[in-house]
């Protein structure tokens, strides 16, 4: 049992408002860990701090045993830690296929000289990434919209593309911020199946989700956050039965 991601005593405030007040958590390698908590608990902020969007004020973050507290987003991605966004984001004028290939890692053709003068390694990598992108598109049923611009996708397709991007990056760990929010139940089930398959392939997943059915079905363990701290951690049944968790969601009994 090894910890892939360790967060200790992470703090972060915005203009004096403490959003993270000393978060301690660890995500086991190979697990599909759920992260739940009422709105405003600091879940998304924790993702933003861990993924390098903004630095933590204090505390430490370790990924694969290495300190990454101050690491930039692109360094973390290259190290194998990838994230998705709560509101699906994309590059509006890039096609779905371009999105997928773009997220492939280790493309030597992204060097200026290799791009200008041509390099056999870049061509081979482009070929391989292209094939992988087609396979990912097939897996996510995005084949029919490969040449569409991201701006022209439906909400559900954008959510699928978020997952496709994460897949292309060949990550060791994915931080998923509400991948099923706002999609129809059928698509949500499909996305859940994708996540389970990904996890079975060895990718560690940390999942923020508000649909408790999904959390119960997919996640073990479940971490509960409230008011900028980790409240408790455990199996779904144990966590759901915890009176402190019920209090955090429903308010204190008087």
């Amino acid at each position, binding site marked *: 049992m090894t910890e892939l991601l360790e967060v200790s005593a992470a703090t972060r405030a915005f203009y004096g408002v403490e959003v993270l007040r000393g978060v301690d958590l660890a995500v086991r390698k190979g697990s599909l860990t759920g992260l739940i908590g009422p709105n405003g608990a600091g879940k998304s902020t924790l993702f933003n701090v861990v993924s390098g969007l903004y630095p933590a004020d204090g505390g430490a973050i370790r990924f694969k045993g290495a300190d990454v507290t101050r690491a*930039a987003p692109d360094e973390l991605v290259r190290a194998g830690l990838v994230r998705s966004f709560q509101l699906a984001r994309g590059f*509006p*004028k*890039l096609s779905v296929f371009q999105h997928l290939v*773009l997220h492939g890692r280790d493309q030597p053709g992204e060097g*200026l000289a290799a791009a*200008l003068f041509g390099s056999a390694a870049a061509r081979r990598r*482009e070929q391989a990434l292209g094939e992988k992108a087609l396979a990912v598109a097939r897996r996510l049923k995005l084949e029919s919209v490969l040449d569409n611009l991201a701006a022209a996708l439906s909400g559900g397709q954008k959510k699928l593309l978020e997952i496709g991007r994460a897949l292309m990056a060949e990550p060791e760990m994915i931080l998923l911020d509400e991948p099923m929010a706002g999609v129809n139940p059928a698509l949500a089930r499909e996305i859940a199946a994708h996540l389970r398959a990904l996890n079975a392939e060895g990718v560690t997943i940390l999942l923020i989700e508000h649909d408790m059915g999904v959390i119960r079905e997919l996640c073990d363990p479940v971490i509960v956050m409230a008011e900028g701290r980790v409240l408790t951690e455990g199996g779904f049944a144990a966590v759901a039965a915890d009176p402190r968790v019920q209090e955090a969601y429903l308010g204190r009994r008087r």
Partner: protein
Amino acid sequence: MLAYLIFTLTIGGIYALLALALNLVWGGAGLVNLGLAGFFAVGAYASALATGAGAPILIGWGAAILAGLLAGFLVTFATLRLRDDYLAIVTLGFAEIVRLVALNERWLTKGADGVSGVRAPFKAELGVAGFNFFYLTLVAAIACLVWLALRRLDLSPWGRAAKAVREDQELARFAGKRVLRIKFEAFAVSAAIAALAGALYAHFTSYVSPDHFQPLITIYVFLAVTAGGVGRPLGALVGGYGVVLFLEATRFLAGMTPGLAPVQVAALREIVIGASLLAVLHLRPQGVFAERPPKAPRLP
């Protein structure tokens, strides 16, 4: 008339190079560089001064490219945290600084008198008419070479990553791209191309002075890229030639209007230019050659 046409087309080639430079940094990486005239001036002065000091013309052009690269690095370094409007303001300021330095540092640039007698390659051997034709061909060939190189870049993984930076630089970092490096590269290469255009200009007219590098040039080049198609090198190439031909054509068009004093004709010309920019933006905002994302390969 032929000489006039050749002159116009040569200037067209120089604008095409400027448009290609702008398209790389603006259409490619999303950096609004209003300092184009500044890099153009840096190249023109670098080559004029180097060849004036006795260097061969090719060395002068090399010096212009180097000076452009260096200026590009400096400006990128000074504007690391800026984007959009703020970057535009600072780069516009850079161009004005270059012009004012050229105007005031008389020991180097001879101030408002300008540097005259910039050597024109093979002018003695070819004669005036022959030289003009030779230079037109040379500029067109260089513009086409630069176009081919930039087209290659545009379609490469580098170009794709740069466009990701253009669309959303934060998200590009979450795609694992080295955003800063891409910005540096795009800006520096663009500045070098603009400087080369400046050197070609200096050795064509044989005279450079601060007056040649007014911010209006940058605006015309933006017009060229917008009309040609932002994000597509072919659009910049065609747009550069197109805008110069159009600017010259407005002289005749305004001149043909009866009952106007010469001052009014000049004003009418400006009006026509402004109105046509509005028309382009309104009727075809994506430009004549709109950006086209490459199609996904199909497996059998």
